[in-house]
């Protein structure tokens, strides 16, 4: 951390000694300037010049007064690895108990400032999600607990350890039950440690608890295959995906892992003749449903009927055993035929946390022979391990007073357990309660002992995401506060003097080093730390054997859920996920990709229901007994359903999260041992009160304009220009009176493949983190002043009840004939010799003419001072929050216009590097922040002058077009047409 020092007082004035006498001398000197006759006011040329000169000089002196200078002191002994001004990257791992990514952390002068995906990790490669991108800001959260405390009194670690050890020994001596309640742990070394820790006690239980649970998937696999795991889904090997409510591109299990596999099979850039077909059934409008080739609306209660019917039809056609069951309201035989045609090369998914549904899904996949290639039970995903029944049992035990000690790590049941009151009353009955959390949450303060843990960027850790694929976490900064890792605490409390770092190393030396080919552990360790990942070949693949009994039991006792008039579904939003990171202003202000709404959770209802009930968007509606939320009319929402996002309505999670929206976790139902994320509301009631929603896009139709150009796969294969015919027409009309501009060296361009973009919003946060984009708050978003430099436009077409959805990332188009450049009166925005549309903040006087004259409206204005302004107290006010700022990018002043720069700081950095190394710049070497974060490689940046660059090849594609090309703005950003695979059969 950079230290600052004020200049010592004596440097301020150059005079030393007696101030008064010096002032007198000055005065005398000044008076000497004027001769005696000056006061007689006889005006002569000499006197005039004197007076003029004196006043001019005084004005100049007054004007030259400088602001106080803050100096930074350099290192006395500079660490060899640090060169001021050059970033250092550390490979580490993001895992918060719900989402995993192997990442690289960029640090500048000791501060982590940006997160990138680790390209060495086969799990997510360079892709990240918005939540992972934003996690660096959570490190600098002022609301983080800053020291250990007992009953809210800050104490030292020594004293808290002593008290806890006392208590825990006391409890253990009488055989009281000690429970460790954690989020899912996928760290092999921590697992070992927990086992050792538990082994010390007579009566120990370890419960893993996830706020959004995949318990049913695990239990169904356990029942069907005897393996309690979440399988890996290999979309890249599939021809057909049928998903029933599984938002696998947005939030379900591991989107960052699924998106690249899914989009890999949907790219058509290298002469592919086929693409993955995606059929989706869902109630709310998710980004996965938006990307589907065929989307059908269903109510949650219909899922089991649909899947059972589908099973029967496939079974019937393939000659397997069928069961008696209700048939679905639509004829599924075509779907069944399609699935059978893609036998072994399809995936059927269900996103519902219901064991019966998951067992039927497994049955379908088994019938289709999808286990093996497309669904891999051997290389399962260690993402989530919580079993709902165990948590329910624990809470019951706590409530009954059977638990004597409860150690909580990274969980927040007071917020996200369906019965928070029961949990809290149980907590009161527990003698020893310890909370180990990295951030402030609703459970904080409820336990006697608070032992705050490091942020993941401050800690050592490891993770095994799939068997044989490991990654390491290493600290990228010294702990900012008096925190301690969870594992260190366990080691202290089990009386083990070794530090967690040494424990981890020892474990790796023992467990994983022998699996490597390297001769020396030190080298192995250094290499693993440097790479961040380590993998070894695991044991041979066991074929999955399906146990029919469970399926027969489920199919024969089909529990038809009675359909209610209104079924409410809770979903994880793209921005906030489970709500664990809600105090992160970047995420809070990230609009949902489909609803384009942020800073609140809303009740999404279908246009038909809204019309029937006379509800307008923004009306406060009452769902069931006492849930009052603003309504949002969501095209594509299934009739009779209402979707509400989880993760809002915090009460004690920090200033950003608190009192924004409503917490719906208490309405989650415990249904047959599994938590069901939803409930049924008898009716909806319009309270007729209005609230204004913070929407970032309010018009949804393309108005027949060729903004997103689309075609179908069949037409595309016939004619690769299909859907894009107009492009050639415009190109043929390309004429100008002026000499065409040539770019001799580089000509930067960006290609965006609309067929690959799934709308995950990762680029938006990546850009925000890279370019110091301020958060403006709910009121300003309502006034349409969000600052994001890249935004994902979302359009609907067809009818509102069943729309097609389009995503289009929109950023500065870097037009070679830019309308904005021409109109700036002070030339603050101009064109570089490399085709960049540049913004000179120093020169900008803020006339906003360029904003008006940009047909894409990608320019942003600093309406207020967003830095050091208490009115915008998000992350650019406190010293801590400002540590996330990227020193390579100017923090903009109030009153200037800003916009996407194609990450010019990255271009310069790589150009300089290539120059120093005396070599040509490689294609793909420069990556803009959006490109780097994109899990689907939909954004490709590069040099258009290099005919072999990836971007040039895409620019040569018949699918390429420019947005509003008829205006002859000559953008450097190109879009590739959207191709739907919605026809019945690929021709």
């Amino acid at each position: 951390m950079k230290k600052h020092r004020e200049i010592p007082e004596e440097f301020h004035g150059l005079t030393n000694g007696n101030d008064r006498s010096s002032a007198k001398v000055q005065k005398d000197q000044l008076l000497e300037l004027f001769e005696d006759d000056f006061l007689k006011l006889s005006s002569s040329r000499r006197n005039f010049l004197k007076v003029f000169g004196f006043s001019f000089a005084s004005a100049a002196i007054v004007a030259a007064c400088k602001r106080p200078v803050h100096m930074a002191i350099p290192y006395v002994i500079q660490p060899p690895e640090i060169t001021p001004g050059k970033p250092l990257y550390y490979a580490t791992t993001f895992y918060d108990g719900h989402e995993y990514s192997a990442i690289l952390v960029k640090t500048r002068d000791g501060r982590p400032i940006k997160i990138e995906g680790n390209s060495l990790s086969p799990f997510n490669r360079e892709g990240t999600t918005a939540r992972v991108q934003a996690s660096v800001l959570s490190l600098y959260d002022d609301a983080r607990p800053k020291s250990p405390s007992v009953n809210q009194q800050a104490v030292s670690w020594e004293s808290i350890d002593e008290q806890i050890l006392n208590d825990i020994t006391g409890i253990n001596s009488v055989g009281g039950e000690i429970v460790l309640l954690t989020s899912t742990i996928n760290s092999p070394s921590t697992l070992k440690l927990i086992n050792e820790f538990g082994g010390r006690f007579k009566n120990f239980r370890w419960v893993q608890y996830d706020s959004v649970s995949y318990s049913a998937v695990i239990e169904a696999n356990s029942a069907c295959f005897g393996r309690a795991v979440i399988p890996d889904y290999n979309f890249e090997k599939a021809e057909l995906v049928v998903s029933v409510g599984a938002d696998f591109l947005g939030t379900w299990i591991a989107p960052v892992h699924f998106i690249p596999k899914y989009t890999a099979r949907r790219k058509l850039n290298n002469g592919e003749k086929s693409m993955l077909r995606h059929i989706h059934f869902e109630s709310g409008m998710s980004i996965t449903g938006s990307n589907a080739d065929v989307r059908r609306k269903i109510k949650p209660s219909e899922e089991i009927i649909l899947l059972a019917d589908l099973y029967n039809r496939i079974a019937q056609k393939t000659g397997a055993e069928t069961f008696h069951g209700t048939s679905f309201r639509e004829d599924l035989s075509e779907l069944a035929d399609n699935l059978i045609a893609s036998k072994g090369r399809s995936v059927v998914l269900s996103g519902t946390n219901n064991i019966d549904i998951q067992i039927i899904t497994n049955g379908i996949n088994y019938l289709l022979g999808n286990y093996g290639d497309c669904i891999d039970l051997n290389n399962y995903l260690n993402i989530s391990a919580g079993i709902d029944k165990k948590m329910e049992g624990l809470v019951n035990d706590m409530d009954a007073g059977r638990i004597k000690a409860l150690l909580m790590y990274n969980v927040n049941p007071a917020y996200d357990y369906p019965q928070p009151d029961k949990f809290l009353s149980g907590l009161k009955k527990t003698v020893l309660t310890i909370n180990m959390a990295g951030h402030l949450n609703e459970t904080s303060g409820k336990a006697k002992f608070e032992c705050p843990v490091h942020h993941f960027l401050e800690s050592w850790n490891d993770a095994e995401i799939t068997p044989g694929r490991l990654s390491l976490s290493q600290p990228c900064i010294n702990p900012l506060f008096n925190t301690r890792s969870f594992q260190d605490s366990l080691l202290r409390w089990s009386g083990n003097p070794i530090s967690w770092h040494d424990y981890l190393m020892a474990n790796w030396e023992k467990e994983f080093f022998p699996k490597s080919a390297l001769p020396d552990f030190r080298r192995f360790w250094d290499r693993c730390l440097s790479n961040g990942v380590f993998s070894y070949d695991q044991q041979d693949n066991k074929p999955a054997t399906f146990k029919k009994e469970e399926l027969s039991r489920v199919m024969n006792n089909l529990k038809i859920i009675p359909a209610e008039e209104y079924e409410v579904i809770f979903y994880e939003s793209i921005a906030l996920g489970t709500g664990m990171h809600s105090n992160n202003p970047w995420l809070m202000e990230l609009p949902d990709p489909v609803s384009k709404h942020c800073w609140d959770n809303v009740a999404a209802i279908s246009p038909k229901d809204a019309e029937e009930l006379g509800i307008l968007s923004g009306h406060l509606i009452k769902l069931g007994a006492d849930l009052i939320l603003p309504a949002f009319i969501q095209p594509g929402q299934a009739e009779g359903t209402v979707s509400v996002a989880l993760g809002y309505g915090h009460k004690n999670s920090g200033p950003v999260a608190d009192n924004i929206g409503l917490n719906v976790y208490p309405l989650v139902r415990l249904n047959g041992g599994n938590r069901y994320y939803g409930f049924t509301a008898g009716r909806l009631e319009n309270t007729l009160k209005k609230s204004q929603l913070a929407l970032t896009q309010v018009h949804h139709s393309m108005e027949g304009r060729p903004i997103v150009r689309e075609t179908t796969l069949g037409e595309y294969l016939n004619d690769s220009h299909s859907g894009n015919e107009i492009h050639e027409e415009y190109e043929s009309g390309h004429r100008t009176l002026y000499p065409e501009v040539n770019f001799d060296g580089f000509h930067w361009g960006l290609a965006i493949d609309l067929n690959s973009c799934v709308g995950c919003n990762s680029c938006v946060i990546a850009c925000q983190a890279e370019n110091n984009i301020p958060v403006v708050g709910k009121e300003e978003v309502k006034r349409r002043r969000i600052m994001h430099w890249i935004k994902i436009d979302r359009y609907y077409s067809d009818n509102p009840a069943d729309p097609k959805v389009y995503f289009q990332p929109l950023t500065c188009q870097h037009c070679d004939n830019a309308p904005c450049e021409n109109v700036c009166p002070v030339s603050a925005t101009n064109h570089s010799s490399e085709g960049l549309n540049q913004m000179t903040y120093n020169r900008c006087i803020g006339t906003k003419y360029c904003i008006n004259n940009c047909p894409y409206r990608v320019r942003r204005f600093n309406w207020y001072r967003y830095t050091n302004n208490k009115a915008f107290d998000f992350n650019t006010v406190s010293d801590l929050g400002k540590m996330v700022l990227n020193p390579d990018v100017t923090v903009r002043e109030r009153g200037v216009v800003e916009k996407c720069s194609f990450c010019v700081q990255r271009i310069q950095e790589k150009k300089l590097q290539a120059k120093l190394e005396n070599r040509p710049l490689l294609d793909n070497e420069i990556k803009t922040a959006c490109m780097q974060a994109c899990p689907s490689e939909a954004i490709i940046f590069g040099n258009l002058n290099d005919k072999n660059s990836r971007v040039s090849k895409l620019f040569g594609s018949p699918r390429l077009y420019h947005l509003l090309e008829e205006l002859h703005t000559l953008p450097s950003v190109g879009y590739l047409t959207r191709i739907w695979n919605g026809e019945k059969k690929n021709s």
Partner: protein
Amino acid sequence: MYNSKIRGPLIEGNKSLGQITREVVAPLETKSGRWWTVALGLSSLATIYGIYAVYITVYKGIGTWGVNNSVGWGWEIINFVWWIGIGHAGTAFSIFLLILRQRWRTSINRSAEAMTVFAVLCAAIMPALHMGRIWLAFYIFPYPNTRGPLWVNFNSPLFWDFTAITAYLLISVSFWYLGMLPDLATIRDKTISKIRKALYGFFSMGWTGSSRQWIRFESLSFILGGIAAVLVVSVHSIVSTDFAVGVEPGWHTTIFPPFFVVGAIFSGFAMVMTLMVLIRKIYRLTDYITDNHMDAIARILIFISLIMGTAYLTEIFVAWYSGNKYEMFTFFHNRITGDYKIQFWGMIACNALIPQLFWFRKMRRNWIALLSVSLLINLGMWLERYTIIVTSLSKDFLPSNWVSYTPTFIDVGVFVGTIGLFATGVLLFMRYIPMMAISELKGVVHIGSKKED
């Protein structure tokens, strides 16, 4: 050529030259009425509201206005164009009529020019305030500097704008002030107060009324008039290029320069009409500003109103005829129908339809009709600028960027403040400067009067 048989007498009441001086100077010499104090109080209050709004804007930022990411220009630019338009009347009035040797202008031109100066001042506040960093406004001055030197962008209409407005303001002020010299000298000679004598003496720049001075005075008037006549046309043409150079649908059209100039003269004449009706009524100057004068202005207004109507129709026709879908949308779905249809139809009604009432002689001679129509025209012209600026920006090329626009309390404050400033200026003008060019009035006192026959 000075003999006007068609118009009848330019000044009624068979006045002697001394009487003219006495009557015109009377408001300066006598104690002002209570209405004047009340009006000044009210306009000062409005000005104070404006100063508060300006203070907030400068202190906190343009975020206090209603503008947003899509609508970058709002009320302030509407007001700017509106005030500049009003500021056209004085110069248009005096100069065009001076060049055309229309002597009936003599009783009106002084007030019209005063109005121009105050309106242009009000207008000049707007673009300055609209700058995000007003403290760096000097970047727009084209002068050799130590920053490179960095020059301004000579391609930018905003720079042309800055040049045009500065030139216009300077010329209008000079023309107005220099035209006042003989009258200031008259007051200097008449007054008995020492302070006044000193002040008016200073400002009359040693005017003695010698023949040589008169000759120079006349030729200077013509020179300045010649320059100003060009500026009247150029200023609003250039203001229109702020829009016409842009790519926005509804802005990018070649009709804008003449359309804007005519519109400006329209609103200016309407404002002259408003003021004249009030001055006549309050100061009982009906002998000088006769019904014939008002009649003439009203006839001009009908004529311009017809041009305006034609221009509106042309714009709509061209939008349709071009087949450009963005233009079509702007005109047919965001102006004629849509969120802003009230503003659009208000504009049509006030500018193209209501002025047609002046075809009736009765209307041209009824002061209430004159006052209300002139006020409606100014409202209509404000709505026209609203329609042009807001509708084009709010819904342009990419529907994802479409928004609606609502002004804030501060936007209103800035507008009300300039109205207050304008009114204060006009009230002070009435009190401290002769409202009519006495010397010129004397030149036309007998024209058309019965005496000459």
